[in-house]
């Protein structure tokens, strides 16, 4: 608890409140209960993962926090204000990198700057800093088609961070990548979070990933999603690749796996 309070003091991240949120989709083909009822809070600068099996509704929940979809029940508040549309300080990373093929890497990172009509010159330095942080500084003038999948996703992460967002939402950003690239990007993400301290909500179905990266892991049941278990990851920061061999880490993974297996067997 104390560690969390210390974090919130020197972070620019927002407070996230999900209060009794539910979502049901009505289509011609029938009704889908995506989310039954979920409540949780995220403190400023906290890194929280939503962990659950595929199709359990975690992406829907993320989209609601992003302001792209409205909840049917309950309320989502950012810094006390109810979410009705994407907030200005939002950075979002999707499973597909969604880079614009016709723009250079640098221009892709600077896209939010251009759309919000801000002064490009002021942000070029920051863009290059971000690219340097993920090891892509040399590729600033290249086009996305010249990069590998992992590199492209890194650019996507830089783009999400260019305006120093106070809320970073990530929807299974590494799902489409191979394991080694995944792990490398996980490390990059840790560096980024350590440096810039936004509030992060990270959706994944990988137990390892969730525990390595997060301060807390919220485990969700299969559809309709409910909060099964909240796991406090007490491991020290900064976390590194070697943390995966830490006995504390392994124990947490085992615990999470047990919860997951039980919920899926039901």
């Amino acid at each position: 608890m104390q560690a969390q309070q210390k974090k919130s003091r020197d972070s620019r991240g927002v407070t996230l409140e999900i209060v009794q949120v539910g979502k049901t989709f009505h289509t011609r083909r029938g009704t889908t209960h995506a989310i039954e009822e979920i409540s949780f809070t995220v403190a400023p600068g906290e890194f929280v993962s939503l962990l659950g099996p595929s199709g359990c509704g975690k992406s829907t929940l993320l989209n609601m926090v992003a302001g792209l979809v409205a909840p049917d029940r309950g309320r989502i508040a950012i810094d006390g204000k109810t979410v009705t549309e994407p907030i200005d300080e939002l950075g979002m990373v999707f499973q597909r990198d969604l880079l614009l093929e016709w723009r250079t890497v640098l221009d892709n990172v600077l896209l939010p700057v251009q759309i919000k009509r801000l002064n490009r010159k002021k942000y070029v330095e920051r863009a290059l800093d971000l690219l340097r942080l993920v090891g892509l500084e040399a590729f600033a003038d290249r086009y996305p088609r010249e990069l590998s999948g992992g590199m492209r996703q890194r650019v996507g992460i830089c783009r999400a961070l260019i305006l120093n967002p106070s809320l970073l939402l990530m929807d299974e950003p590494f799902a489409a990548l191979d394991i080694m690239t995944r792990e490398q990007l996980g490390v990059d993400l840790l560096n980024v979070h350590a440096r810039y301290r936004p509030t992060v909500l990270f959706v994944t179905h990988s137990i390892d990933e969730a525990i390595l990266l997060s301060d807390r892991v919220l485990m969700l049941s299969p559809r309709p999603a409910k909060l099964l278990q909240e796991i406090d990851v007490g491991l020290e920061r900064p976390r590194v690749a070697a943390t995966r061999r830490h006995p504390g880490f392994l124990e947490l993974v085992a615990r999470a796996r047990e919860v997951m297996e039980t919920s899926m067997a039901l």
Partner: protein
Amino acid sequence: MRRSHVPVTVTLTIALLVGAWEAGVRLFDVPAYLLPPPSAVLKAMVDWAPSLFGHTRATAVEVGAGFLLSAALGIPIGVIIVYSKWLEQVCYVLLVVSQSVPKVALAPLFLVWLGFGLKTVVLVTFLIAFFPVVIATVVGLRSAHPDMLQLARTLKASPLQTFWYFRLPAALPSIFGGLKVAATLSVVGAIVAEFVGSQEGLGYLILTANSMFQTPLSFASIAVLSVMGLVFFYLLVWLERVVVFWNREEASDEPSFRLQV
């Protein structure tokens, strides 16, 4: 087959076909007014060079004007159809009706309204060529990936920004597909229109040559026309490569290890 071999192979094949044509005509003693040998066609080209040049230029102007008009109007119409449900209904009805009526049937009517010459030909050319451009624009704009549009929403992009930054560039490959079809159709359209309503141009020349049984000249005109169509088409291919520069297959020696998402 290696890339450098293709032009050589094509040239050889064409040379072989032309040679077979020449030999066949001579062997079977085919009268010139039915099927002239390539040598006679070439001779006609040389003999009629100044006239041929003038008519070629006239047709080229018509094709160019008709095509540019179809692009200049076709693309905006496509955009409007995507962005306005009401206009979409109206436009589609008009479009389908206008395309169902054969332009050859309409050409004499235009003749009465606009008289012989450039205006009638350009109008017919435009009507024939602009439909594929509209369709290609609509399809291209609609093919924007929903995830891309979601990204635009998270960035709070305005509809105009979403169009300009996300939808339009993604639609360009499709639009160019439509433009390439329109290019070929423009040539067809111009010739058809000339048949009915013009006193100059390669179409007119073909008709006149046929009526005088000057078949070699007729063939020569067709040959020039084909070259014009080819040149025009490849001009667009080049333009597409310049504008839609990101679509090329990377012809590099390094293996492309980008994972397909």
